[in-house]
């Protein structure tokens, strides 16, 4: 496997590692962007309104569907409608599956994130005259961000791992090595493909962790320098009044 990975030809060839890495990223990124674009606003709305939680349940139920089965079902349903060259007929089912897979963690964690916002904070926001949308954007979302990120990160891991099935439908991606390696009994190739998928997932998670660090307010994440923690000497505003006792 190491040998396979060390062969520069396996990296740069047409359909080589770099090509497939890029395809893999594209499949995953597209699914994640669409899933976030759908699940984040819906999750914010559900959390804000406190209604429609059943959607989270439904989304979670979808998660239980077998990925390959769903992929084939979608392909069989869609194939008669798509003619001609091009990969649309393979991309559509793949992306739909990946999106369906990415939505539940993002949706559930967004809803939970908004629900976890201190009721007093929401009350204050509304009481100061923020409109519903302002409460969502200015207060609920920034405070829900750590959980939103955890949802997106968990979705990312899952989508990157699952984007391997794109190869099952004849698309590219790192799954190509896994399927081809298995089919042609080239186990070094297969195992290297699996390792690359895992490494890509870890790398993507690191990128998101970094993004989270720079997006989430320190006031929410609690990353304060030791010097300014509660209870330091400057907190004299609450010191007891000078005693009247004689």
């Amino acid at each position, binding site marked *: 496997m190491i040998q396979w990975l060390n062969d520069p030809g396996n990296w740069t060839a*047409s*359909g080589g590692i770099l*090509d*497939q890495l*890029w*395809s893999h990223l*594209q*499949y995953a990124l*597209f699914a994640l962007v*669409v899933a976030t674009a759908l699940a984040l606003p819906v999750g914010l709305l559900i959390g804000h309104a406190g209604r429609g939680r059943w959607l989270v349940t439904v989304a979670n139920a979808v998660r239980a569907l077998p990925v390959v089965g769903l992929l*084939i079902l979608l*392909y*069989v*349903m*869609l*194939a*008669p*409608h*798509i*003619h*001609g*060259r*091009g*990969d*649309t*007929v*393979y*991309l*559509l089912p793949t*992306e*739909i599956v990946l999106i369906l897979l990415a939505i539940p963690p993002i949706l559930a964690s967004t809803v939970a994130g908004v629900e976890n916002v201190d009721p007093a904070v929401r009350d204050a926001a509304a009481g100061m005259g923020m409109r519903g949308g302002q409460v969502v954007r200015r207060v609920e979302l920034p405070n829900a961000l750590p959980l939103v990120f955890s949802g997106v990160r968990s979705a990312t891991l899952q989508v990157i791992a699952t984007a391997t099935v*794109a*190869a099952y*439908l*004849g*698309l*590219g*991606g790192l799954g*190509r090595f896994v*399927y*081809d390696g*298995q*089919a*042609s009994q080239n186990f070094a190739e297969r195992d290297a493909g699996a390792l690359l998928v895992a490494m890509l997932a870890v790398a993507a998670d690191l990128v998101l962790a970094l993004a989270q660090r720079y997006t989430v307010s320190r006031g929410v994440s609690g990353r304060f320098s030791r010097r300014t923690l509660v209870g330091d000497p400057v907190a004299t505003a609450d010191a007891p009044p000078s005693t009247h006792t004689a």
Partner: protein
Amino acid sequence: MKKALTSALVAVCATALAACGSSGSSGSNGLSASGGSSASGGGTTIASKLVLGGSPEFKTRTDGIPGLERVYGVTFGSYKTLDAGGPLTINALKNGQIDAGDIFTTDPSIPANGFVVLQDPKNLYAAQNVLPLINKAKASPGVTSTLKAVSDKLDTNTLAQLDVHVITDKQDPAAVAEGWLAAEGLNKTGTAAQGVSVKIGSANFQESVLLAEIYAKALQAQGASVTTRLNIGSRETYVPGLKDGSIDLIPEYSGALLVYFDPKATAVSSADVYAALQKAVPAPLTVLGQSSAQDKDAIVVTKATADKYHLVTIADLANNG
């Protein structure tokens, strides 16, 4: 309603995927980029305009893409990795995602869609004639002649048609077997196999089950007492079973069986394979007369493509189009 909905969904998603479209090319292996077209000499070959689809291993298999180039000088424009003659390849061929597919010759989709199987005169794909693999102890003259009569009547088109009934129409293999035997007059009661008891097995796929049923009904008609053990599994499972007598007879394919017994075998034509097989089969087993029905890899195109480029054999693909 459902159809309209699906169409709408397709339209929307297709637009959305346009951005993602470039990645689609990664799925097809750019054979042309690897110098395929130059290998076929001057001018533009028909094949270079076409997309071939098939299993992942077809890309590297000796009788896959390298074989096509070596034997026929055919290099396709690109190769789309799909499945081994499964629904992906068949649908892709049907809906125009690919122009040619690596599909098995008896696949029910061939008669169902009017696909054209390109002839393989140079036997790029080793012959895979259907034949009975039997324990010598049971190969009485009556049994041998009864099964020969069946093999004589069976050909590739017939088998593909019967597969349509079993695989596509989901009819009972036993009933389909009986129906065909009746149509061919092979169900007439006789005594050729009287007193013989035969245990017939099958591999675990539909065509094998169908063939086992055909053998069973034919032998029954000739007075044999028959029991069946269907869907046993792969060769690794049932060949030992034949040797130890837990089954006596199973339908087989000549080329694959030869390679099983002799991995270094090089024979490709029906006659050569059969001759080699007869030598390679270890005691106490033997093969009986083979039928002309073959279930093997084939390059299959749609009728429209075949007509457009006047394609009959694989070699025609190397012509300038």
